[in-house]
């Protein structure tokens, strides 16, 4: 099977299950609202009577933020200048991914992030089950019942991935940079050191890419094959990925590129769009919602294409076994 075909079929699978995007988006919105409300009340209390209020609606005020962030706690810690839009959030996420400093916004936010990982595990189960199912039609009932059915597997996989990433940041990251420093630690030339460091980060990035891919396929396999052990599926995923290395990596690289393109385009639009009036502010909000929708759709396309690729490749590799079933 060609990479492009897997991608195309993945897209059409997501298209058939458009409602899943809406359901996930709505739940996301509700969760966000639960946390945004106290944050809004707090901001209102902080700046509601100050002249800086009107300015803040359109523009980030550094001096105000500096004072605010000094005693910020919990959710308030998420308020930072990079939220002002454009490409900055992209860099924020890239940095978090490669450095593993997830607790840098405080433990409350960290715990919130952990909670979100399991919420995502719940949705992923529902979505992958839809894609793996031959009927391939969306009903909210089936979506949620599948999500519940596979939750224990996907939660176990998410926990394993968290432990693996923790080890990755705790051991592998320092080990790689120990080697980098060994090479350029005493260099007089910053450009040389810069490129060697970049190499270190690229290795980390490739490893993150691979680990994420392994866990993606583990999720696909545990649901497609209705396996009892999710850990066994990690091994099966490794076998599958390395058995079809060009295709699996190619497909995920293609999806990643599309993701980067989406982020770049939206980043560019948001950079160029400097809200000066309330309707522009509303437009920015709308674009941001579209970006979130695109993000959900893309994540689902990952799973759908991976499911297609997995099912087609394993059917081609073991036609006898498949017929028996």
């Amino acid at each position: 099977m060609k990479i492009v075909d897997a991608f195309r079929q993945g897209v059409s699978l997501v298209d058939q299950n458009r409602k899943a995007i809406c359901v996930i988006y709505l739940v996301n919105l509700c969760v966000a609202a639960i946390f945004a409300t106290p944050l809004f009340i707090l901001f209102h209390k902080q700046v509601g009577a100050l002249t800086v209020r009107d300015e803040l609606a359109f523009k980030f005020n550094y001096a105000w933020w500096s004072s605010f962030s000094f005693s910020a706690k919990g959710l308030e810690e998420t308020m930072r200048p990079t939220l002002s839009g454009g490409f900055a959030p992209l860099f924020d996420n890239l940095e978090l991914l490669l450095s593993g400093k997830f607790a840098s916004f405080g433990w409350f936010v960290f715990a919130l992030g952990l909670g979100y990982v399991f919420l995502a595990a719940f949705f992923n189960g529902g979505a992958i089950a839809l894609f793996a199912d031959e009927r391939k039609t969306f009903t909210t009932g089936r979506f949620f019942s599948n999500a519940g059915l596979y939750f224990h597997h996907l939660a176990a996989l998410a926990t394993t991935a968290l432990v693996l990433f923790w080890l990755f940041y705790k051991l592998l990251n320092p080990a790689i940079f120990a080697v980098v420093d060994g090479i350029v630690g005493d260099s007089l030339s910053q450009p040389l050191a810069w490129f060697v460091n970049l190499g270190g980060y690229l290795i980390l990035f490739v490893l993150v890419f691979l680990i994420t891919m392994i866990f993606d396929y583990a999720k696909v396999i545990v649901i497609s094959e209705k396996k009892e052990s999710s850990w066994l599926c990690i091994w099966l995923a490794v076998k599958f990925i390395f058995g079809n290395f060009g295709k699996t990596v190619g497909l995920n690289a293609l999806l990643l590129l599309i993701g980067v393109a989406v982020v770049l385009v939206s980043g560019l639009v948001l950079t160029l769009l400097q809200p000066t009036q309330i309707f522009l502010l509303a437009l920015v909000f709308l674009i941001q919602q579209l970006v979130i929708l695109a993000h959900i759709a893309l994540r689902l396309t990952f799973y759908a294409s991976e499911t297609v690729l997995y099912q087609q490749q394993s059917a081609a590799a073991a036609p006898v076994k498949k017929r028996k079933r």
Partner: protein
Amino acid sequence: MNKVIYLLFLSLFLSAAEHAAAQQSPKVVSYKIDVKLSPEKKTVEGVETLTWTNAGATPTGELFFHLYLNAFKNSQSTFMLEAAQRPDGPSFYESVKNDGWGYCEVVSVVAASPGNFKETPLTPVYVQPDDDNAHDQTVMKLVLPKSVAPGESVVLNIEFISKLPHKGPRTGYHQNYFFVAQWLPKIGVWMDGEWNCHQFHANSEFFADYGEYDVSVTVPMEYVVGASGVLADSTAGDGQKTLRFRQDNIHDFAWTAWPNYKTAVRTFEHPDLPTVKMRLLYMPEHQKYVDAFFDATANTLKHFGLWYVAYPYPQITSVDAVWRSNSCGMEYPTLFTTCVDWLTPKGKQQPLGLTIHECGHQFFYGLIGTNEFENAWMDEGFTTYATSRCLFAAYGEGANTKIYLARQGFGIPFTLKNVPRDPRDWIVDNHRGRGALDFMDRFSWDYVNRYAYRNNAYEKPALMLWTLENYLGDAVFNKIMKTYAERNVFKHPKPQDFIDIVNEFAPQNMDWFFEKMLHQPGVVDVAVTKVVSTPAAALQGYTGHGDEMELIKAEEKKKDDDEVFESQVHVRRLGAISLPVELLVTFENGETIEKQWDGEAAYKIFYFSGK
């Protein structure tokens, strides 16, 4: 009478700049030094001939010298013991461990005083005036055969070997790069009947008398050299070259040598200021920042020159210190070090801010020779304040750049276009968290920790001057700063000298302000904690008396356009330091009211009533 007219003419034709240029420092010291750099041994070896004149009011039979490099002699020096407590302490140990230690070894000393005593060999004794740490050898005492009276001189011939520390703070070597600072046996300051010659501390800079430096350095032919002063002479032979640098009216001398430096020269010119030759030594990979380095230097010479006092020397040398050498960001008379990150994005005020700061020290340190050991805020604080002023005047708001994935040598700079920053933001940011740690008027090493030193040397005094500028107004404050600078060129002013000038020009005595600022830890922080605005309650109950007594009931309250609102603004003092503040209240109808508050109480409610 004629003479008076002549003087009048003279002062009309002589610009302020020429006044400063014509000014001479009292020549307390005259150093003639001849040294050779051995790149393999990491040493600078040679002879120093020092003529020291007693400029004090009392005679002395002893001479005190700084041997700063002995701070890096071993782990028990006062500097290294204190450095261990610093956040960057471990990196010091890391860089000097094994054979990276440094020292200044005095091989021999011979002293003579014309008309007083003949050439006499002297034996150095290490003393520890600050802390009695017997392991510390950063101060040397010489006992003279006879006292030197005020006005008399003593000539010392000192043979010495200085081994530079590996990537030492401010001074040292990094592979074949050498930054040679605090490298010579340097006499202390004889003032108020005692030697002001402190040991070298981890949180401290320096103090010395003005005079003449005539320094010849011999280096391998391929080395490019930059130094304080002006190149007076150069000779070559045997694969070596000797360069002679000279300068009057300075209180320290530093130099650097590295084969890979590139150099550039430009001229600073301004109609109201003397012309200065600007020489830049830079890393080849920083070619694209050459314009920025020169531009920042020229802007400093211009703005500081116009605001405070003209730069009187013929040359200024800026050194783009080698990456990770630890010598970046330091000031020496007529020479300073700056540096830049290879990946600095356009619009980011680097290397501008750092270059202006270090070049700015030519004024608050170089020309106005305050005691950095005892009053760190008088050079660092004044320079920090003036730097942000100059940065703003020359370049406006700065770009807000975040460096992603930052680690030694790496980082992806990204400019947050929507969030411009005032060049003074970092001062407020740092002060907010550190302001309560300690108070300002202390010796550098007495502060509770490194952050307290930084805060009280840089941030708090800069904010103090900024506050004073706002409080007194531009015109008065500019006059104060200019007068302070002009009166103290080539002098050693103390805090009271500045306070006296403030009081001379301020419309009121400002001692109360300095008492709070210099002697109280804490920050100035006032918050608007609550704003309420409600329709005024209508009058109820009985009014009048006797026959005219009338009962007004609640429901009779009228609703009309003339409704009166009662508003409250609650203000709370959050910081320990109280200063007067202005409160600007804007009402919904656009009306504004300005109120003054002395800021003394912890809490204050302002009441307003209107339609």
